[in-house]
């Protein structure tokens, strides 16, 4: 195996050649925000929060899928990046209905955490006030599409780990929506094994267990490394 030496935020580092920037940064406690990324699932580079700057290039690259290169100088926290990241979060707030005070995931939400961590103290973008459905037809779980950020973690965990591929994405653009089977009510889905993996990987309160009140939907954190172990020993 060959190794690469490079810099992240002026820190000299080394890594295996197929390591991604995000992997190395996490190893060394360098904070790069992510939302669609989840260890153990294939990366899709969709949320654009992990974009970083490479010195000498004007193009921003997603840290989750970009492999390190010899001599590369990565900047993870420039003012430009901070601004773009805040705008991404603002876009998500304007797109859905993210009222923390009434959300089952209040206090245990990736989006909420990122907003606080990235300093989003107000939203400049007008709210789109989209009316999206809530599907509570499943006997144990429910989905509130208004809180969905379309990270597709549920789609990937269902396909790649559980192997059921119950979830997928329907329509396109601003009308995109995750669906169960061919847009049947979740409760009628014949492929869903009710394993609950999607609930555990959902970064917001979009997917939740029934009978949870405000702030009670705590994710089982030991579940996530378990996914990774599953993949590696497969």
């Amino acid at each position: 195996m060959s190794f690469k030496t490079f810099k992240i935020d002026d820190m000299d580092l080394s890594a295996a050649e197929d390591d991604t920037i995000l992997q190395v940064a996490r190893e060394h406690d360098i904070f790069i925000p992510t939302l669609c990324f989840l260890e153990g699932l294939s990366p899709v580079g969709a949320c654009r929060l992990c974009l970083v700057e490479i010195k000498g290039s004007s193009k921003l690259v997603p840290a989750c899928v970009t492999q390190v290169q010899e001599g590369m100088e990565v900047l993870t926290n420039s003012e430009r990046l901070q601004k773009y990241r805040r705008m991404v979060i603002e876009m998500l707030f304007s797109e859905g209905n993210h009222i923390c005070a009434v959300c089952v995931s209040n206090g245990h939400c990736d989006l909420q955490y990122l907003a606080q961590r990235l300093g989003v103290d107000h939203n400049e973008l007008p709210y789109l006030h989209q009316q999206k459905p809530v599907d509570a037809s499943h006997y144990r779980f429910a989905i509130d599409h208004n809180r969905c950020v379309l990270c597709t973690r549920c789609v990937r965990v269902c396909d790649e780990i559980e192997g059921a591929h119950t979830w997928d994405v329907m329509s396109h653009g601003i009308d995109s929506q995750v669906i169960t089977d061919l847009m049947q009510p979740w409760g009628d889905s014949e492929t869903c094994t009710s394993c609950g993996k999607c609930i555990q990987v959902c970064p917001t309160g979009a997917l939740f267990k029934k009978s949870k009140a405000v702030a009670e939907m705590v994710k089982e954190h030991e579940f996530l490394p378990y996914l990774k172990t599953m993949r590696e020993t497969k």
Partner: protein
Amino acid sequence: MTLDELIPFAESELEEREQYEHEIHVCVSSSCHSSNSEAIKDAIQAEIDAKGMSKTCRVKGVGCMGICAAGPMVAVDPDGVLYEQITPDHAADIVATIDKSPDERLSHPTDTPFFNRQFKIVLENAGKIDPNSIQDYIAADGYTALYKVLNEVMPKGVISRMMRSGLRGRGGAGYPAGLKWSTVAKAKGERKFVICNGDEGDPGAFMDRSIMEADPHRILEGMAIAAYAVGADQGYIYVRAEYPLAIKRLKNAIRQAKKLGFLGDNIFDTPFSFNVDIRLGAGAFVCGEETALIASVEGGRGNPRPRPPYPAAYGLWGYPTLINNAETLANVPSIMRHGAGWFSAIGTEGSKGTKVFALSGRVKNIGLIEVPMGITLREIIFDIGGGIPDGKKFKAVQTGGPSGGCIPEEYLDMPVEYESLKELGSIMGSGGMIVMDETSSMVDVAKYFMEFSMSESCGKCIPCRVGTRQMHDLLDRISKGMGTTHDLHQLEELCDMVQATSLCGLGQSAPNPVVSTLRYFRHEYLELLTDYDPDAAVAADETSEVTQ
């Protein structure tokens, strides 16, 4: 089949042609086709049969003659007469004037700049050969390039010829075709694929459609040469389902080519085997992006993925894949036939060869043109296009569709090349060219294209999914006279952010129409703002002067 067999095949077609004193060409491409040109063809044939002229005169359906605004078109060869806006009722008039002076009321002048300023490579057979006949294509030197390449040139030689020709991708970005070919050729894989991108989706663009409808064998020959060069054994033509005529003709062409052994196993008795299949797109603009196109060909949802890895290394089903635009591939047979030097002598330093443009909007000669690179926009619009109708004044020309920008009058003398158009804030794009006159509002133009990008966004990445919607809403407010200076500021911030952070080319270029209209026509935006007061601005200046 060997060359010895191919030549007599072509000759027999030419001999047959010589039996006829006249050939009447009726355009059966989309635009004329939709104006009932098949019925015109039948009416002329019936008239010729009735007059007993079927031994000396034959009627042929051909591809686009270019000047779509005057269609349906009929041409009489070798008289060189072109008739415009023909209906089946005109059949008798046309047949009656064969060999005599043409019918003045119907004829369209052919000595205009529209015809004599063009330079045709890709469209050399369009309007001349029958797209449904492989014999016609062979008689026009078709498949000789493939024969020669397979028998006389090593794959490396083909690639070096492509490199030297300087051909750049005609799909939009202008990536050097030879470089792409050599990358795929070097990539390691058990299999390799060649894909022809015929998913033309820009509003006002119909170049690839015309090429596929007028000369489908040219695409197949180009693909086969590409496959030989990179080592692929299977090709796919990705066409939009909205192009039924192109699909029909391509299917027919594939069947004919297979029958004669130009596709399939051991082509021209060489070890080279290559098959082509058609894959239909479901009308998503984003599927023109190569990674989304691959996902769609695989049968999945047409979503782009981050690059690298590029399709050249990791493409269709994970195998190295060459993706070229239909027009790019259509250039290949001519480059192989005439040589790289011939091709690179056409055009400018950085942009070689010709480019097909679909000229539309407020211009007299709406249609399809092929011009050498380096020609100025003014020549295209005012000489070839015939200028602006109804005595109106030119305002801007939009190139590159929803990924491009608007170019104002002061830059009309810039040569058409990849770099110069980019400098002006637009792009070459696939070749849509929409001319706008003084009555067009540039804010509305920007809003129109943003609406297009918004509804064509795949929704995968947040900046494009939400950003295009937010930008559209802001443009809508401004265009209705409800916007403020703050809205304009926010619009500019969004443009910058969406350009810099989107996942694929669609999002990265979606703000271009806004950015370019803001660059050249900012006053049109300002005049629509509720809190814009030119007097106040002047007064503020004066006050500051007084206090100083």
